[in-house]
Every structure is written in C-alpha cells, then in structure tokens.
C-alpha cells in the first residue's frame, strides 16, 4: 500500500497528515479522539534533522498530555550515511527519537509502528522498533543489511547465503524473517479497513516487551527469551539472597 492509501483507509473522513522532505507528520480523527502520525516515506534516509523533527512532534504530543495514540509509519532507507551526520552526533539524534517514543509510551500514548515499505539499520531501530507494537503490511521489506553486503562482510558466496536464507530466518532480510524474530508483531490485511485493525492492536497492547517470547514461539529467535530469563533469575535470586 502507498502512504496515501494507508491514510485514506485509516481516516475515511479525512486527515491532516502531510509529507515534507520524506518526513510524515500530522493527525486525523480516530475513534472518539485523534491518531497522531509521524514517520518516514519514500525510502528516505534518516539524518540528524529528520530525527529531531520527528522527535519534536512526539514530544509535542507528550506535552499535550491527551494520551492520543501515535502511529509511526515507516518506508525508509537506513540512517543517512555521511561524515556530516556522524560529526553532528547522529547516534544521539536517533537515540533521542527512540527515547521520545519510549517516553510517550510510558506516559500513556499507545505507540504503534506500521512498516509499509523498506527500513534498515539505525533508522529502523529509532522509529518502527521503538514502538510498543509493530505491525507491517504485505510487501514491507525490513532488513539489517542486504544479502550482497552480508556476503561481502561474511566472505561467504552470495548463492550460498541465498540458499541458507531459505531455512534460516535469523540473518536474512525480509518481512517473514522479522516476523519470525518477533520484531514484527502482526501483518495487517490491506484489503480490509486499517482503522479497526489499528484499533484492535491498541486494545490488545502487550503489557511487557514480548518480542523475545514471540521470537521463541515462531522459531526465528529460539533462545533469546530463555537466555534473558536465566540472567534475570540469577541476578534476582542473588538480590533476594542478600
């Protein structure tokens, strides 16, 4: 789905969501209140200015204090790769955006990611992956790194990697694999109105971070949850034992 189609399906009565320089912001009527929308459109790389612009919208929402849900719609490139962005502290700007979303969540704004195109690496972590629950539309194409680059770094032949990717979701790009790791919570149905689907996601927001449990259930991340629990139990037992 295109962003325009998504917005039309989310807001059948119209909306005030706009895109400027690949950055999405605005809101529309939703349920008995409103749904704020931020995000990245058109495979745009996320740099220092974009990250701060989006974070500013999120902090405005927190300041408004209405606990309206925030949708983070993403069809981005990776982080903008440049000397200037790193000189200016891109790591701080992307982390700041993620923190703004995490704060909004803590302050009662349901945060929902909606991946409808590409996203990768730092841009993915700072946007879609910083929401309480991440949904995707068919055709979404998340990745950490494309297979030719993985081949270069791992020094494995591309055809071997492509063969491995068929049976091993843990390293290969693509929506199915990110679903299997638990990073993507659910895939929405583009043939049905999106507003009720988003509403249902918000009604059933997971209390805790459930991504490792989902990854274990779905087989894409077989051991992460057990490892985290082992560590947490060992440490907690020690505290209780004095």
């Amino acid at each position: 789905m295109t962003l325009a189609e998504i917005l039309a399906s989310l807001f059948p009565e119209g909306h005030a969501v706009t895109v400027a320089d690949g950055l999405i912001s605005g809101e529309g009527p939703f349920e008995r209140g409103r749904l704020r929308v931020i995000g990245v459109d058109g495979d745009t790389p996320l740099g220092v200015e974009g990250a701060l612009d989006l974070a500013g919208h999120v902090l405005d929402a927190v300041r408004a204090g209405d606990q309206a849900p925030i949708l983070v719609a993403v069809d981005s490139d990776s982080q903008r790769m440049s000397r200037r962005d790193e000189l200016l502290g891109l790591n701080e700007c992307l982390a700041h955006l993620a923190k703004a979303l995490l704060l909004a969540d803590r302050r009662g704004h349901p945060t929902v990611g909606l991946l409808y195109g590409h996203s990768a690496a730092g841009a993915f972590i700072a946007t879609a992956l910083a929401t309480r629950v991440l949904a995707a539309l068919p055709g979404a194409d998340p990745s950490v790194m494309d297979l030719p680059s993985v081949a270069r770094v791992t020094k494995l032949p591309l055809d071997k990697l492509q063969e491995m990717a068929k049976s091993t979701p843990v390293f290969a790009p693509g929506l199915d694999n990110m679903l299997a790791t638990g990073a993507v919570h659910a895939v929405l149905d583009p043939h049905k109105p999106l507003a009720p689907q988003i509403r249902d996601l918000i009604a059933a927001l997971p209390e805790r971070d459930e991504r490792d449990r989902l990854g274990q259930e779905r087989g894409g991340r077989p051991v992460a949850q057990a490892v985290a629990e082992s560590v947490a139990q060992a440490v907690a037992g020690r505290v209780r034992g004095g």
Partner: protein
Amino acid sequence: MAGPDRDRLSWYEASARQRLDALLDPGSFTEALGPEERRMSPHLPLFDLPRAFDDGIVVGTGQLNGKPVYIAAQEGRFMGGAFGEVHGGKLVGLLRAAVEGKPAAVLILLDTGGVRLQEANAGETAIAETMRAIAEVRAAGVPVVGLIGGRAGCFGGGGLIAGTCSRLAVSEGGRISVSGPEVIETNKGAEEFDSKDRALVWRTMGGKHRRLIGGADAFCDDTVSSFRTAALTLIADAPAFDLATLDAEQARLRKRIERFGECRDGTEVWAKLGVNDPDAVPAMDTRVFDETVARVEEAVHDAR
C-alpha cells in the same frame, strides 16, 4: 588486591573480563550465565565460525565503592563485540532485572561494532529490546552509565544504545557513531569518508570530539581507574528519564545543528565552540583537555 593494577591496566588493551574485574571492588563480581554454562550461539556453526562460551559478553552483579551495581562488558575481540541472539539476550535480561532489583546503577562497558551480521535480525531486535529496557531502568530511577574506550569502539546500534544511557564516559580510543568509517566509505565513497585516515576518524567520532560537543559526559585516560572515577561521578549526577530531560535534549541537539551544521570537520566545530587552538586538541593530554572542556558550555548538560 590480587587482580591487575587498575591504575596501569589499559582499558583499550584489556579484555572484557579484565576491565570488569579491575573496575569493580576486588572480588565483588558474580557472573550470571557464565562461560561454564556454555550458552553459545546456536547460529554461528551454520557459518562455520568458532563460538565463545560467553557469546562475547559478560554480565552480572558486583560492587562499586561498596554500592551494588549490575554490570555488562562486551568483548570486542570476539566477533567485534557485535550483538547476536545470546549476547543480546544476556544484556536484556540484566537490564530487565534492574527494574525490580534497583541497584545503585547499571554499568555497560560497550565495545561493539553493532549487529552481528550472521544473526542480524536477532541482533537488531535485541538492540531495540535493550533500548526499551534502558528506558524502563532509567524511569525506575536507576542510572545507566556507558563506558566506551575499547578496540571495537561503539558503532551501529551500539551508538544508539550509548545515546539512550543516562551518562557516558569515553576515552581517546573510544569512538561513537552509527555508520562506521568503512560503512560510509563502502556506501558513499572515499571522498565522503576515507576510513584509512585515522586522524579524520578521531576528529569525527572520537572521544575528544564527543566530549567537546556534549556527546559524552566524561573524558578518561586509558586506564581502568580513570573509568572507575568517571563512573562514580556520573552515577551521582544522572539525569532523570522524563519530559523535561528530553525537551532539554531536543533543544541541545537543535542548537548543535544550528551552530555547527555547516562545519566540514571536527576542528571547525571546536573552533566555533571557542577552543583557542583547535589543531592542538588531538595531542592534548587529559589534564589540558579537561581544562579546555571546562570552558565549553555545550560539554556540560543534563539533557540526555
């Protein structure tokens, strides 16, 4: 103490275990899910790669100046300290435990190239889980302090984790960025970034640059004792995780881009910051550098 002398042990040269043992009060560290349990990566054999019994990260509890802390140390010499499934799960578990356990602080000794590509999706997701957990730990009133000065630096998702911490200490050798020099060069060409130009790397993402612009909160000598002193200071002075802090960070980062957005090089940024002799910065020792930092307004803030 029986362990290595923390005044002389080089942070950069030390292993994760050496750093951690020398950083904490002697004999106070207790590891969780240690190497004897052999929780190794289930994925690396697929790539015919050797595994580590601890998957390149050491986590547990200890004491710092008599106070209880939770601590994690990445081993930059195993797979570049990168986040795999087990590696990430250990850090996430430690942080989640800190929400209830409420130690005096969580210390993360970051030494990482980012995501381990052989386990890319698991590593990327673990980084997102780590950031969520850090926000929860901070919101529970527990400072999370990052210490960066290792061989692998702090790149990729590691850079985002660093930016999520309450406070950061960094040494000359520590580098913090999202895209590493090789990644920028591979994608955008050597004209954009010549990754072999080590001086350029340090001026763009090195410890002194990060400290001067406020991207880190303490600058350390390359010794474990210097990092220990910094950790104690930073724990006592950690910003809250709330709207006021993030509003202040928004203003701080906006101002930075307004002031330095046209700069091409670290030395231009430092000149605008009011550093008298920017070209002298790379060679400054810690004492002279700290005096320089003390005159820079941007370096001291509660906005992280």
